[in-house]
């Protein structure tokens, strides 16, 4: 075993988060972290002393199928103790394929990692977030790290090691790509998150919440139905079990019922305040400050009060 801990994500930001998580494994396993690039080197991925460049796959995009095959070939040669990927939609697929190719276990959606030198241990949310489970897998292991669970790793000096893995082909071909509704906010680094739920009646009304978020120097997030079912915001704004994990100083839940799957993604926020017309809404159980009221009255009132204070 060369004993390295590999980090890969198709997203550079997520890759830096996974690099932080990898340091927790590397520490316990007396191993070193290697951030992996596939095909061509990427700029700006930080957090690793040595970068591993898997050469062979070409083309602008590395699909999860190609990533998994390239990682599997290189792993057979170099025997990393663990390969960590970000739990994005493409990342879950790449990790699962890789684990199946190598015939090793894959620990899913881990929010906290450690190693005892023999394997990886992790913590993750299960049963809609009602329960935290500790999972374990012997080396060699594949792991997906929940997005937002770790801060991005700090920059470290870098040197690149190249590994030839050969051409890799994919049975499927991407023939088109369309951006979802405007996004661009980084929820993971936001100190204040104003989060919108189904209590918001119309898409246009989101601008009222966005305005509040901007006034509070924060970012706008949402519950899953707003992005998945209604398509009002991109999927990367949705907070919870199947979306991003956030830990802002202030989480302001507006018109969100507070189902377990949502709470799982924001329960580590420093302060939670919520506005809901239903006094029995479960979100109040997960809140420090609760306003029973109509968001269409309370949000404008908050906006006025904030302006008056500045």
């Amino acid at each position: 075993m060369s004993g390295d801990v590999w980090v890969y994500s198709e997203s550079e930001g997520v890759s830096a988060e996974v690099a932080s998580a990898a340091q927790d494994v590397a520490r316990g396993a007396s191993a070193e972290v290697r951030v992996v690039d596939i095909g061509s080197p990427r700029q700006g991925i930080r957090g690793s002393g040595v970068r591993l460049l898997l050469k062979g796959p070409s083309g602008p995009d590395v699909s999860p199928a190609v990533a998994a095959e390239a990682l599997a070939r290189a792993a057979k040669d170099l025997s990393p103790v663990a390969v960590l990927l970000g739990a994005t939609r493409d990342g879950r697929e790449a990790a699962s394929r890789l684990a199946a190719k190598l015939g090793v276990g894959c620990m899913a959606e881990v929010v906290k990692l450690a190693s005892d030198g023999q394997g990886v241990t992790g913590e993750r949310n299960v049963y809609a977030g009602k329960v935290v489970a500790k999972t374990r897998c012997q080396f060699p292991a594949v792991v997906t790290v929940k997005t937002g669970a770790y801060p991005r790793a700090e920059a470290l000096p870098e040197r690149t090691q190249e590994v030839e893995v050969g051409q890799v082909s994919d049975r499927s071909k991407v023939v088109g790509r369309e951006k979802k509704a405007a996004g661009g906010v980084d929820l993971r680094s936001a100190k204040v998150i104003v989060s919108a739920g189904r209590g918001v009646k119309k898409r246009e009304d989101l601008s009222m919440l966005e305005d509040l978020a901007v006034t509070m120097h924060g970012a706008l997030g949402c519950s899953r139905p707003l992005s998945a079912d209604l398509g009002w915001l991109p999927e990367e704004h949705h907070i919870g079990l199947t979306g991003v994990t956030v830990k802002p100083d202030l989480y302001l839940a507006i018109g969100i019922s507070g189902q377990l799957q949502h709470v799982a993604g924001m329960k580590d926020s420093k302060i939670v305040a919520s506005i809901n017309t239903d006094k029995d809404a479960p979100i109040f159980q997960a809140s420090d400050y609760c306003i029973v009221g109509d968001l269409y009255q309370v949000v404008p009132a908050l906006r006025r009060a904030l302006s008056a204070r500045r």
Partner: protein
Amino acid sequence: MKIAVCVKHAVDEAELRLDTEGRPVLAGAAGKMSTFDKNAVEEGLRLKSAHQGEVVVFVVGAAESKKTLKEALAMGADRGVFVAADPLVIDALRTASMLAAAIRRSGPYDVVICSEGSSDTYTGQVPPMLGELLGVAYVGYARKIEVTGGSARVERSLEDSVEAVETSVPFAVSVVSEINEPRYPTLVQIMQASKKPIEELNGGEIAPPGTISGVEVVSMSSQPSTRKHVMIEGGPDEAAAKLLDALSREGVLK
């Protein structure tokens, strides 16, 4: 067209009780069809109505899992395959290897449909692993599937984009909830479902365990909420002012 749909009998998280130490009481816990698997069954039925053929539903789990198969049969699937295994000790790769073995035995299939992830333990790993083990093309997070002859066009819903992918039959796919609106079975359908055939297999026999230990669950616990639960009274303006005062005191307002 031969269509396989994988359905999981998941722990019903709403009914799940915790013991005095905050551990989930899984023995005898109520189960239900994993939420998004209804979308997987629905998509299978839609493909069948467009292309004719057969929809076969597969479940790996304990004996109670047959309830979920029956529900899928009531929705309209033609027959079911039950693979017996202890759901608490098999990891996603073991689950996928049992599903792959069962699917191979009754196959070949043109399309294998899963949902993006289960509602109880959500790893999202079984579908891509299944694609790998079956050696077919795999496309994840589909929000639209169109099959024309030997090829298929699938729209994948990613975090910030929608990707259109072309692939060839046979293929495996996972679907997201926005792909369709699952139907509710009628009473008559529920009664007829009990007459539809269910084949029973043993997971350990059709997919003998290898040497790998895989992922194990070491322990489970829950932390009670430690929030302050302060109810802020008053009309909108008064409540807004009080909230801002409280947030300033907490030091979370910039």
